[in-house]
């Protein structure tokens, strides 16, 4: 059990700086997700916590220890890798017991821990199997088991679900949540999938180009994105960003697709020329562009009923209280 804190953490490879000073706190027992597009530095940040990358600048501490100069083995963390990194020549049991044996635990203690983890993860019947004899989901669970038996201060997850198929991913997401509720261990989870981030996180760190653009609870980030990047990255389809004017200055008007509602032509705030419909069953996504000049800005609308595509355009309105405004230059949110 421990908190993790980042204080102005930087990483460079030679001249190239890839993480430009990230500061964040992860509370004891909290599940924090670092989310961002590929190349944003999120995995690098996680690997710096694990000790697999050196820390170029700033400080990372786990519990009350600054870990910058500690070896991975001395940091009291366990990591789950994207490709699981199971030892292919060892049985499931030995995979989980490996770290414990190295730490010199008693045989009976090792056995108890491995069996308990196997029970939690429903791996009881597979302890003698080799990783290659397991399915993707089972391998994933063994990787989790290897982390659990160590009883570390924190779990680090490096995109652990991205090698699974869509259905299994949803299932493992639920299992991860259940596991965290049960163990309550501080967890840091890296993903590029905003749905994973939204569903798993207590709080999330949205990263872009080596910076933490926003840190907050999923719903708070969703409701009040700090920048146009966050507005575009969190939510699917992303928030509509429409060039507009406010108080005589140019701004970007941000409206979520579900906040645009169809209305009569007379009360329309904008009209969308429909390009494409995506019926999802529960609702319909309408993709189009703004009618009437305004340089054809693309707009998405989420409708809770089916729509007649042959009309060719859709009149919509929105609740001004749900509109966001951003600076068109820096992309920062304009707080009114």
């Amino acid at each position, binding site marked *: 059990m421990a908190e993790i804190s980042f204080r102005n953490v930087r990483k460079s490879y030679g001249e190239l700086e890839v993480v430009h000073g990230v500061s964040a706190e992860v509370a004891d027992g909290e599940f924090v997700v670092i989310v961002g597009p590929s190349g944003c530095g999120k995995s690098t940040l996680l690997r710096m916590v*694990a*000790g*697999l990358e050196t820390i170029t600048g700033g400080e990372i501490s786990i519990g009350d220890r600054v870990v910058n100069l500690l*070896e*991975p*083995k001395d940091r009291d*963390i*366990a*990591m789950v*890798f*994207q*490709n699981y*990194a199971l*030892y*292919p*020549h060892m049985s499931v049991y030995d995979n989980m017991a*490996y*770290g414990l044996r*190295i*730490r010199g635990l008693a045989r009976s203690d090792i056995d108890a821990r491995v069996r308990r983890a196997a029970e939690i993860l429903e791996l009881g019947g597979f302890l003698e199997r*080799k990783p290659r004899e397991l399915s993707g989901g089972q391998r994933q669970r063994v990787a989790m088991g*290897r982390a659990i038996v*160590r009883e570390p201060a924190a779990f680090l997850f490096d995109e652990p679900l991205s090698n699974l198929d869509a259905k299994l991913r949803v299932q493992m997401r639920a299992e991860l949540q259940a596991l965290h509720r049960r163990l309550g261990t501080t967890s840091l989870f890296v993903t590029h999938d905003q749905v994973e981030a939204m569903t798993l996180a207590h709080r999330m760190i949205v990263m872009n180009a080596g910076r933490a653009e926003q840190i907050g609870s999923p719903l708070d980030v969703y409701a009040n994105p700090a920048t146009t990047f966050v507005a575009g990255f969190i939510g699917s389809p992303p928030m509509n960003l429409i060039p507009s004017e406010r108080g005589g200055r140019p701004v970007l008007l941000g409206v979520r697709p579900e906040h645009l509602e169809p209305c009569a032509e007379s009360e329309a705030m904008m009209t969308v020329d429909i390009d494409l419909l995506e019926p999802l069953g529960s609702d319909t996504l309408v993709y189009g562009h703004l009618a009437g000049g305004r340089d054809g800005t693309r707009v998405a609308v989420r409708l809770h009923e089916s729509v007649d595509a042959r009309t060719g355009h859709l009149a919509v309105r929105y609740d001004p209280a749900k509109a966001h405004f951003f600076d068109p230059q820096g992309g920062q949110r304009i707080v009114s």
Partner: protein
Amino acid sequence: MEKRVVFRSAWLPYALVAPQIAITLVFFFWPAAQAVWYSLHLQDAFGLKVQFVGLANFATLFKDSNYLASFKVTALFSVLVAFFGIAISLLLATMADRVLRGAMAYKTLLIWPYAVAPAVAGVLWAFIFAPSIGILTYILKGWGVDWNWIIKGDQAMLLVVIAAVWKQISYNFLFFLAGLQSIPKSLIEAAAIDGASPFRRFWTIVFPLLSPTTFFLLVVNIVYAFFDTFGVIDATTQGGPGQSTNILVYKVYHDGVKAADLGGSSAQSVILMFIVIVLTVAQFRFIERKVQY
């Protein structure tokens, strides 16, 4: 998953493998069959008359103390060559795999000896270790070592082992390097987080994962020591001094070509053939079983 090409034509597949089969038949099976035939016959010195003698050639061989000694020499030689050839190249490959700067230069230099013919490698080392003018002989003398492989059997053995190993390291190195590079980096990282020291990571993760490569190299190196080191021996010790480096394959050549005992030499090569077949089968049956994971 098996990928199979199905030919429609009845004769095309045979035509395609025919060259390989022809080469195998002409250059492997025919000489082998001839060796068997000659091993059962006695030929006069001028090659004019041939007489069937049954297993007499073999009986003579097993009463010959020189021949029995050659077995011991071959066993020692092949174990030393295979062991050091594999151990040193594994060490070099592990180190080359860790090098970040100038890795290509190291790798290229380490691969070069493979391009040197065994006989040339032998001559090279014979010069370096030459009793009168060798540079290493000079250095050894400075340390008080009396180095003269021309008259000392164990030193002669050391020389041919060094030359044979030096020649083979490049080959082993290439395979080990490829093997090391195919081990996912995350496995090593996972082991590091699990608390394993670099030494322990090597013996519990890397080495077991390299075991298929090591096994393959063991088979190849034993066969190399048995046969391909002929050039090394011929260019340096020629089996001497006495019988101390007279390995089986060199004795086959010496007795057949130089001593003109065609029947005896053929009998030896039949035995040699048999030994290598047994060794290879044994290696696959007993050692490969431990390699699977």
